[in-house]
């Protein structure tokens, strides 16, 4: 059988979720820039919870999302995810991230367990040459990247995988399925140029980026969905997944 992750978490240090997000929040005119790169297998396997499988090759996506408006005002987030499989389903296991809006940080933490640090700059800009993404925290650029001259592609060619967020809920560690829906109006693709990419600052000190893939940019409506599923991070997903409202298996 496939390899399982090597990390068996406890609740120590995890964001505590009291009430899982049950509202659908639609945000129009959202832009999402996704950087993708491979990482080496052994540290990736060690970083994944035991419920998840690493794909081959393991890879990360760094997702920068800029929303002109929302229930907590305009905001931009930048999250690093280590991609994995829950049985045969694709998930992006969230390692860490930043936002420029403290109300949004609180909303995503309360609803999904996302642990986003508030940074002085988290930005995604459309430039005449393409796109530019920056995250500056404590005066230090942890992401500074551009995508030059991206070409047009079809929105249907771009795939966004759901988040899987490790948090504490009901006194136990859980993987919360943070699901999205999206309607893409415009999509581009190009290769990234990094001036700064500090994955350690995003919670992944052991993962070294290698073999960079094309970056995608999409614009459209982005919807944060109610939580439907929880997973025991210490058990295989086939045994440890439950619907919200159902008791955890003993």
């Amino acid at each position, binding site marked *: 059988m*496939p390899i399982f992750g090597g990390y068996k978490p406890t609740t120590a240090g995890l964001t505590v979720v009291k009430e899982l997000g049950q509202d659908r929040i639609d945000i129009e005119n959202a832009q999402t820039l996704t950087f993708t790169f*491979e990482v080496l297998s052994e540290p990736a396997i060690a970083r994944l919870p035991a419920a998840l499988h690493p794909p081959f090759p393991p890879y990360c996506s760094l997702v920068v999302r800029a929303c002109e408006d929302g229930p907590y005002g305009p905001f931009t987030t930048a999250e690093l995810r280590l991609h994995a499989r829950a*049985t*045969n*389903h694709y998930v992006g296991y969230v390692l860490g991230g930043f936002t420029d809006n403290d109300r949004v940080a609180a909303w995503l933490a309360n609803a999904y367990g996302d642990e986003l640090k508030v940074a002085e700059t988290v930005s995604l800009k459309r430039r005449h040459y393409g796109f530019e993404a920056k995250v500056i925290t404590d005066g230090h650029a942890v992401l500074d990247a551009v995508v030059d001259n991206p070409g047009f592609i079809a929105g249907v060619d771009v795939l966004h*995988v759901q988040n899987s967020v490790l948090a504490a809920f009901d006194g136990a560690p859980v993987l919360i399925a943070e699901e999205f829906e999206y309607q893409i109006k415009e999509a581009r693709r190009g290769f990234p140029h990094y001036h700064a990419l500090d994955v350690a600052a995003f919670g992944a000190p052991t993962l070294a980026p290698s073999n960079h893939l*094309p970056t995608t940019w999409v614009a459209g409506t982005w919807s944060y969905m109610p939580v439907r599923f929880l997973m025991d991070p210490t058990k295989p997903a086939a045994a440890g997944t439950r619907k919200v409202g159902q008791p955890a298996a003993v």
Partner: protein
Amino acid sequence: MKFGIFYEISVPRPWGPETERQVYDNCIEQCVLADELGFDYVWAVEHHFLEEYSHCPAPEIFLSTVAAKTKQIRVGHGINVCVPEINHPIRIAERSAVLDIVSHGRLDVGTGRSATWTELGGFRANPDLTKATWAEIVRALPKMWMNERYAHDGVCFSMPERAVIPKPYQKPHPPMWVAVTSPGTEIDAAEHGIGALGLTFNDFAEQERRVKAYRKVIETCDPAGAVNDQVATVNFLFCHEDNNVGQQTGLRLAGTFGYAASQLVSAREVYASPSYSSFGLLPQVRRASAVPGEMPGPPPGMAVGDPKRIVEVLKNWEATGVDGVNFLLNALETVPQAEVLASLRLFAKEVMPAFKASARPKTPVAAE
């Protein structure tokens, strides 16, 4: 209807010193039995780096061994990856010709372009270009085989005039196929006049629609070489006297296959490109399989159960217009070898007679 067996050659962890040898030995034993039982084809994939899912990067060597141990069954190289970073087209032509010769004209040549980033990225191939390189190579191969000498000045490769030798035993050349995973590739097959080697688990209605579209287009094709007007599909096979045992074992096989397949990184997943609008096998295996224990019964198109059920299933596939079905017999050795062999024997005894004998001559095609 023609029946074939299809190998990914999946190898379960833990990988001890004997694991891969044992799996290869099991597969070869199955091929020898399939030959004795009257199966028409054995197909073997070309995959690289696909941990557990497929340890079959050199199918021409596996198929050479099979050819040496069998008499009738055709050997299908399914497929050659027609991406220059992975296979130079001259080497595809040369290897195919040798395999056709040593098998005394029993080779079918599959072509394709890989559906995973695991493979394409490993060879630093550009996913945007694989459709074009496939088309260029597929048109060059028959010329390398049929012309005494050949020169090529193309986009993905070029060569000065040389004699690409040896020439295949079958004349003008072995039947050619393309692996069909993405929607629309069956049309590419028809336009090139080559067979559509289905590698996805469509439902009956979708398969019928694809076969009709293929037949319509191939009538007016611009053939790459000799026309091979055939459509095959793929399925799981587990045949047992007890329908419930057959279905449950077959579901375990399908579920294990789907589980292993989903651990790969498809090109579609990480490299947004119009060249890869499909996940390949994954959506189909998700529908055809599920987490073990969750599925109430097999899908209507899955050839698992007792002979009576499998005959019904295959009659439905035959009604879609396909010319043949190729079966996956195992995945990660989840079915013990003795049960795989028993399943093949029961299928040959109880299921095969319900279908017309293969139109393909059992004896090798004579060279001119």
